[in-house]
């Protein structure tokens, strides 16, 4: 069953820590114009109706892993050694696609390229936080479904991470039968709207939720890297 869920901005708990970090100021000591821009971003987000998250859970009969690749309803995904390893103990798997929507993505892009890059950047950060918050909410639902059946979930992993080629998103998207929450892929496997994320979560009675470790990632020079 493919769930395609619309979220109101008010239902999403944005990660304020993330916003504060990306803007470089503590939330309670942000100089103007940043509080103003944040409230504008909030108003815009409250008015849109294209914040959507889609997910589906694959039963053991639909999910196969051989240590190198995954097969979901016969569709092959190749997330690479690291992520396949993280999913090793999973009996079920969930795929998801989340988007902050076209309205926010396009407005952020328009502002960043021209009219007001500062507000554009704030809206970009805000949009990223929305996309992540949608993924958080889906993850909670998947976790609740798993727990109801006595199972746990792994962390979530996305194409593009840990050498999982983004081109695999074509296969991932094909499994959603068009119910992608309005997200489409370019031939080069970019998601539109831009403020979108996709990925997989492992489910099983013996799986462990592990924090996303920087040592999983090959990007040694990343600004967000925790040593």
């Amino acid at each position, binding site marked *: 069953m493919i769930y395609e869920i619309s979220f109101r901005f008010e239902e999403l708990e944005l990660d304020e820590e993330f916003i504060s970090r990306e803007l*470089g100021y503590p939330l309670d000591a942000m100089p103007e114009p940043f509080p103003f821009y944040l409230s504008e971003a909030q108003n815009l987000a409250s008015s849109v109706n294209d914040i959507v998250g889609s997910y589906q859970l694959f039963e053991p009969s639909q999910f196969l892993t051989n240590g190198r690749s995954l097969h979901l309803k016969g569709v092959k995904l190749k997330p690479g050694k690291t992520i396949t390893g993280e999913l090793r103990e999973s009996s079920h798997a969930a795929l998801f696609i989340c988007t902050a929507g076209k309205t926010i993505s396009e407005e952020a892009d328009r502002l960043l390229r021209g009219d007001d890059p500062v507000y554009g950047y704030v809206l970009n950060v805000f949009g990223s936080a929305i996309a992540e918050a949608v993924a958080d909410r889906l993850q909670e639902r998947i976790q609740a479904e798993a727990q109801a059946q006595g199972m746990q979930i792994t962390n979530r992993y996305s194409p593009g991470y840990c050498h999982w080629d983004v081109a695999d998103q074509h296969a991932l998207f094909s499994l959603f039968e068009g119910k992608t929450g309005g997200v489409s892929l370019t031939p080069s496997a*970019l998601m539109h709207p831009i403020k979108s994320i996709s990925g997989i979560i492992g489910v099983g009675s013996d799986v462990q939720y592990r924090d996303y470790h920087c040592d999983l990632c090959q990007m040694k020079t990343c600004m967000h890297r925790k040593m």
Partner: protein
Amino acid sequence: MSDLLNQLSECVEFGKVNKAAPFPPQMKGMDGADEITRQAIEQGVAAQDVLTKGLMPGMERVGVKFRENKVFVPQVLMSAKAMSTAMVHLKPFFASGEAKQKGTFIIGTVLGDLHDIGKNLVAMMLEGNGYKVIDLGIDVNTDKYLAALEEHPDAAVGLSALLTTTMANMERITQEIKAVYPNTLVTIGGAPVNADFSQKIGADYYAPDPQGVVEFLNKQTA
């Protein structure tokens, strides 16, 4: 007059756009880049001097502070905003040829990639340091770079990539540009690439931050 230009540098360095702007808090109520540029021109300061002695030193200082992690992206964007507000007043002088930019820079995020915040920062910083910038956007393939080069054959090129999977496209695009324009300088940047990779793919320069590519291009045009 040098007083005005110094004030202008400070407006750009700290991102003071105009008098009404609340940012930065310590400059509240003071004239900003907008007013001071207008005053300088009214007082007969050459537009070229407004650019090279007023605006550019401010942008350079913020570029260095950003490289040293002393300021964050929003502050750099504030500086860029102050800079572009001032540039509006200089536009007619560029159009008439009375003031000149140092050169042209064509930049884009390569095919298969959408991450463009870093690319935009590089574009703004170059503009702030006196270059004309042609921004081709995201998901850019070779033909777009070549079309832009046809129009601006003396331009240098910047390629940005944030996904390890798009690094291969960066390599191919660099080589395809070089095949048509062997003398065009190709610079690369983005979190997963480095100087070794730049050398390997036949690019001319890798910079970890915008200031690096500004300094590289300044050396070429000096």
